[in-house]
């Protein structure tokens, strides 16, 4: 049944665009919300045999059932799409644009589900492109100069990533006559140099898509210039699925956790964690700061993966999920601030907590979790990553991770002080709390962050421990 995760959204989009007038097209929003909630529910309330291995009647060759990490990603996709739709629908001005927005989000959701479910390098590429194409359009939706520039930068760097990924796939096809994960893994096991080169190209292509430093050039512009709902969607889940999750999948199913792979991941992860954190310190724009923060946090995930032991892989997976939740939360908060004040310049903001108590309070939860303060979820995932690095003997990298965590706390506290604490500017004295479209996802996401932290033993046992099976696939 797992194929329904890709096919149902397609059917939904086709049905939603039948020519029955503007009123009918408005259904795109509730349909998107329904699909997102349904998707999350399918993971949280697993129906027996919902996702059996190779059960796709369409193509058993290329369709895996999702593994434990895949399930976590499907859940994250559902939660983030729900939040992005609520905020985006409220902040988009015209009915026709609202339904285009919802339709594109549904298409990208189907694309991400495809990425998560595919077990073949070429299928993976096809679905990566679907997410990318939808994202280009979503970023450029406002059609102003910044939006078009952000979208153009994303297209250009994505094209470079595409060239690397396609070259890699063609080398694997030439070597093995197939594009399946298992064939590629077999070619690598034989120690073929061309296969090693091909997997290197693939990983670099994915690092670009994931916005890992130093391949992050497109990410701050794309996140900042996109409409609020789209920023939430991009930062919350798109780069995570198309870049970071896919790297974890490629390393687990194709390359294995070998010495050189670990070295590459640790190096780029550490560069990303540090560079992102220091760049975030210096930002005035709320969303831009969050964009650099994302680059830094994804560095942790990549470092955890680079540790190459069960703790590291579990930490990487848990941090990926946690970050999807709390970064979506912070982007929802920034959207609420933008909606009420009309600006994202942190130097002009201040004291908003009094007027926007829900946004201010939930922002504190998300920032403390991002900085790794106990007992919130971010603390546990960072702890797992740091301990994994230390145990694996990568002590310098463990220290880098701790240091980047301190810098994270510094820039996020500075953000909280500049935006929510202190005296409110006279021009904002009449603002009020943003509507339920903003506070509902904010409260929901905060609750998940707190619950995943407080009930960590339960979450760890049910959702995270199964992820370590990724280490034993090759």
């Amino acid at each position, binding site marked *: 049944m797992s*194929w329904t995760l*890709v*096919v149902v959204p*397609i059917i939904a*989009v*086709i049905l939603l665009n039948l020519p029955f007038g503007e009123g009918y097209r408005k259904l795109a929003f509730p349909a998107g919300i329904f699909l997102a909630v349904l998707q999350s529910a399918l993971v949280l309330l697993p129906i027996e045999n919902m996702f059996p291995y190779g059960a*796709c009647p*369409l*193509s058993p*060759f*290329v*369709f895996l059932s999702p593994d434990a990490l895949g399930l976590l990603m499907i859940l994250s996709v559902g939660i983030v799409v729900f939040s992005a739709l609520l905020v985006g629908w409220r902040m988009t*001005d*015209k009915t*026709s*644009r609202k339904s*285009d927005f919802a*339709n*594109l989000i549904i*298409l*990208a959701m*189907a*694309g991400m589900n*495809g990425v998560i479910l*595919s077990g*073949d390098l*070429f*299928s993976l590429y*096809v*679905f990566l*492109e*679907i997410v990318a*194409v*939808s994202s*280009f*359009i979503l970023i*450029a*939706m*406002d*059609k102003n100069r910044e939006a078009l520039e952000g979208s153009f930068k994303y297209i250009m760097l994505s094209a470079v990533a595409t060239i690397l990924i396609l070259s890699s796939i063609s080398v694997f*096809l*030439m*070597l*093995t*006559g*197939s594009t399946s994960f298992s064939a590629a893994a077999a070619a690598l096991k034989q120690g*073929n*140099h*061309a296969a090693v*080169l091909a997997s290197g190209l693939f990983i670099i292509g994915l690092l670009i898509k994931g916005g890992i430093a130093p391949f992050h050039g497109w990410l701050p512009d794309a996140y900042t210039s996109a409409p609020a709902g789209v920023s939430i969607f991009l930062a919350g889940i798109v780069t995570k699925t198309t870049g970071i999750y896919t790297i974890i999948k490629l390393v687990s199913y194709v390359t294995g956790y070998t010495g050189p792979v670990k070295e590459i991941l640790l190096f780029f992860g550490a560069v990303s964690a540090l560079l992102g954190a220091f760049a975030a310190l210096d930002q005035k724009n709320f969303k831009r700061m969050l964009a650099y923060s994302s680059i830094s946090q994804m560095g942790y995930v990549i470092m955890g993966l680079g540790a190459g032991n069960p703790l590291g892989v579990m930490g990487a997976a848990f941090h990926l999920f946690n970050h999807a939740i709390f970064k979506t939360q912070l982007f929802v908060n920034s959207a609420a601030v933008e909606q009420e004040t009309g600006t994202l310049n942190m130097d002009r903001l201040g004291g908003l907590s009094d007027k926007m108590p829900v946004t201010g309070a939930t922002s504190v939860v998300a920032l403390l979790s991002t900085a790794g303060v106990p007992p919130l979820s971010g603390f546990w995932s960072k702890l797992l990553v740091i301990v994994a690095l230390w145990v694996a003997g990568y002590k310098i990298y463990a220290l880098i991770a701790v240091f980047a965590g301190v810098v994270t706390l510094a820039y996020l506290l500075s953000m909280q002080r500049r935006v929510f604490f202190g005296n409110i500017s006279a021009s904002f004295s009449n603002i009020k709390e943003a509507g339920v479209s903003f506070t509902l996802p904010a409260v929901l996401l905060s609750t998940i962050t707190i619950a995943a932290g407080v009930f960590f033993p339960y979450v760890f046992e049910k959702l995270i421990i199964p992820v370590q099976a990724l280490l034993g696939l090759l």
Partner: protein
Amino acid sequence: MNGLTLDIFLLAMMTAAAVWTVMRGSLLRAVIALALTSIALTAVMFRLKAPIAAVFELSVCAGLITVVFMSTIALTKPLTHKETLDYTKTRMKRFWLLPVIMALLGSALLYFTIPMDFNLAAPLETAKNFRNILWEERQFDLIGQILVILAGIFGVVVLFKERSKDEPQD
């Protein structure tokens, strides 16, 4: 002309046409250069015994896409004489680094030869019938194709639709 010379000639022509596409100031000439790139690529694909890919490249990329580009350009407003002059003056400046990077990359490739022990003896799936592969083994990718087409339609609608008069301008 033997096979190798022909291959080198075709690849050189393709590269030259591709560079020309990027460097041209005039959109119309860039489109023509892009079509030339596609034609050279078609010839390369024929030489590599991939006739179906070649036919697709020729009909879609060299044919259909060129027509779409031409139609779009017909709807744009040309630059004034002064704007054209200003543009021509500064246009080449941004490309000065390109030959330097190419020369550096080329020499790096010469010195650090990567061991390329390609073993092409594997049973290539391409030997099978194209239609069977597409419809029996790659259906999942066909779903992907439907998604790409739908996303493309929304792209055109969202980015190129004229604002109707009754809708407020943002």
